[in-house]
């Protein structure tokens, strides 16, 4: 941004001098016009891709029939929301969604931080790079591949894990088709795929720490762990909090593809989440209005969560995201 405003001071002929109080809104707008122009794509993006589609939310208050369109469908008010809150299924789904979310937050979230700290301690650039690449790599594989690899590994019909269990004298475990194993499998796969990728931002902010601080700490006789605890962690605290809030903003985006691939008749009671339910009810069974109502509800929960956490973080003296 500075680059563009720079010419205004360099070529005072065309623009009012900087620092001169104009007070006149028009003039101020004109002076900063390039900044506004640069803002435009962002604004357009949100208008077109985020705000315009909200028009479609109307159908959650209608008995929407595709051939009658949004303008022609019958208005039913809160009918679909009533159905939402009276069907016992919905609370199971909500519960499942929140539990998976909690797993993401409390089990997955710290992993990239720990991994980044560990990577940072590695000496020898060659080894460090190889290791980094290896942990990034799963991020570029689609969920289909990750889930298929897991399937081959844990299936009871000749999967390596179950064969090993039998070899060491244990019983086979039904990983794929039992409600109890769904959540561990889910979070393990999330860590497997995303943890390495998640370290990037932390590593960048660790790299920005003044090396003088470490030097000083070493002079005072601080060991490695002390340095991590008193210098690295406090230095990246702001980043951690920001990422934490952003993560909560995606509170209910738990990876539709991932869960959908793991879902089957046997673990539906724990694995059906809002996203998969919207997909099944809306696109496969054509209940457009009802699934829109659920999706709408999901967005509201997300919004509330972000506002809540943002407030908490401000109370704790951190910056927050807005």
């Amino acid at each position, binding site marked *: 941004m500075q680059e563009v405003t720079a010419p205004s001071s360099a070529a005072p002929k065309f623009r009012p001098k900087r620092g001169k109080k104009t007070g006149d809104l028009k003039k101020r707008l004109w002076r900063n016009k390039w900044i506004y122009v640069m803002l435009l794509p962002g604004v357009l993006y949100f208008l077109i891709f985020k705000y315009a589609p909200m028009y479609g939310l109307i159908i959650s208050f209608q008995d929407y029939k595709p051939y009658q369109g949004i303008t022609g469908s019958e208005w039913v008010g809160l009918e679909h929301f009533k159905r939402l809150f009276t069907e016992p299924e919905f609370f199971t789904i909500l519960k499942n969604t929140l539990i998976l979310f909690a797993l993401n937050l409390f089990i997955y979230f710290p992993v990239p931080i720990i991994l980044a700290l560990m990577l940072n301690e590695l000496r020898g650039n060659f080894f460090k790079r190889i290791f980094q690449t290896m942990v990034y790599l799963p991020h570029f594989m689609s969920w289909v591949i990750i889930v298929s690899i897991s399937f081959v590994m844990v299936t009871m019909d000749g999967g390596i894990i179950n064969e090993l269990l039998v070899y060491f004298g244990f019983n086979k475990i039904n990983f794929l088709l039992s409600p109890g194993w769904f959540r561990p499998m889910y979070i393990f796969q999330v860590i497997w795929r995303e943890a390495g990728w998640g370290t990037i931002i932390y590593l960048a902010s660790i790299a920005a720490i003044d090396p003088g601080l470490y030097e000083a700490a070493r002079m005072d006789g601080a060991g490695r762990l002390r340095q991590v605890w008193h210098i690295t962690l406090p230095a990246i605290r702001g980043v951690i909090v920001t990422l934490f809030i952003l993560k909560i903003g995606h509170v209910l985006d738990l990876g539709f593809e991932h869960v959908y691939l793991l879902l089957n008749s*046997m673990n539906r009671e724990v694995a059906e989440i809002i996203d998969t339910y919207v997909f099944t009810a809306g696109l496969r069974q054509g209940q457009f209005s009802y699934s829109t109502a659920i999706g709408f509800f999901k967005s509201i929960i997300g919004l509330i969560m972000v506002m809540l956490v943002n407030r908490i973080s401000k109370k704790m003296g951190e910056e927050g995201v807005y």
Partner: protein
Amino acid sequence: MKKSFTMLLTALLTLSFMLSACSGSNNSKTSSTDPAPAPSANANAEKNAETKEAPTEITIMLPLNTTEAPPDTIKNEVEKLTNTKLKYQFFPADSYEEKLNTSFATGSLPQVTYLKNQSTFVQMKEAIKDGQFWEVGPLLNEFPNLSKMKPEILDNTKVDGKLYTLYIGRPLARQGIIYRKDWADKLGLGAPANVDELFAMAKAFTEKDPDGNGIKDTTGIADRNELVYGAFKTVSSWFGTPNTWGTKDGQLQPEFTFQQYYDTMDFFKKLRDGGYMNQDFAATSKTDAVNMFTSGKAGLYIGGSMQDIDNLNKDLIKNVPDAVLDTHSMVAGPDGKFAQWMIPGYNNVVLFPKSAVKDEAELKKILAFFDKMMTPEVANLMYWGIEGTHYTVVEGKAKAGDDKELNEREVKGYKDSVIGESETNGMYEPYNTLPGRIHAEELILENVKVGVADPTAALDSATYTEKGVELQQIITDATYKYIYGQIDKAGFDKAVEDWKSRGGSKIIEEYNAAAK
């Protein structure tokens, strides 16, 4: 320098703004209730009409059962024969429902829309009744070939007594067992005559080391996560379960309220508990189940079309060169009676959306294309491919070429779209060489003799149209849970009660009212 940079940026932004504005207006056009404009074929058509009859432009959307869309080899030939300009839109069969629903919701279904199976047809019925699709019934008489279609099957596809669709015919009951005859012979077993012998065969295939490698590494049945087209429904009909709906105390009731359904679940529970079928079958895809069978790990493949034996054999002998396959379907139930469930004679239908076909004249042109498709020349081309390249004629029947991959790639995509069946469209019957396949063709005829039709196929229930698919999930889940021992009989009964209270009772009422 810096100034030119800003200018460039502005130019780019303006451009992007204009572009987005354009796309915005396009969107509003397609999402409005007005029918989407048909391809602007007519302007060109009129120009060419002076010289000769211009080819009809037709856009066709259909499910694809192979991995990639076929090249234009067949299409070009079909265009020549039918004087058309065809545009095929292939979408993977696995996700075809989504594609269908989204295209429908945005009013962008093409002139010719193939559905996927009967349940997608049920979902569309509401829109059909609302008049979103052209009725074709009264027009069929004008077309000599289309009018040959079998009236009893057309009746099954009628909605409120009117015909809106053309059907893709299939034998009524193709399902049965494909099994390892070499294993059975080695263990001294014959083809299973009843369900107990079937169980014994699965058990022997698992425990008696039929492949003779000294390790217990084989399984009886390779099944997949599909209750209807997998093993379950086929075996359930052998047990005497009615086909989807049956009559009890003079009333139509769903199959899962019958004792035989429970017996079938017990049968599968015993199979799975004993380890005589793949343990993870409820999470196994069709590809994985087929792989288990073709890699020589499993000995029984139940419920699929027995005509698949050619494909299974092709892959199996790559892995196990001396394997021998055979087909079988006459398995008696506990009461010694035979029964086979039947489809209503078609496996898919074609619809003509009013949003894309704007008047009856255009509809007639499209029907003329389908009329030509029902001539032996075109039907053979689309079903078998090009003579000499994809198939040869032996004794008046078509013998598929040896290059199975070529056929799969170039012909398979069109094969599933041929309307009618060989009796009506005159295409060649298959020439079979594999003994198991010849046996299969005999069995398919036998099956029909003890066939059980779905009594609700031509009936109508508004609740079923609206909620049937969703409610079926309850039963499907409960059936798996019962087989896996997660719930007992009481638990299953509870699921049935749940099904009833959430709309099932109404479906029962409506079907019974419609049957009278």
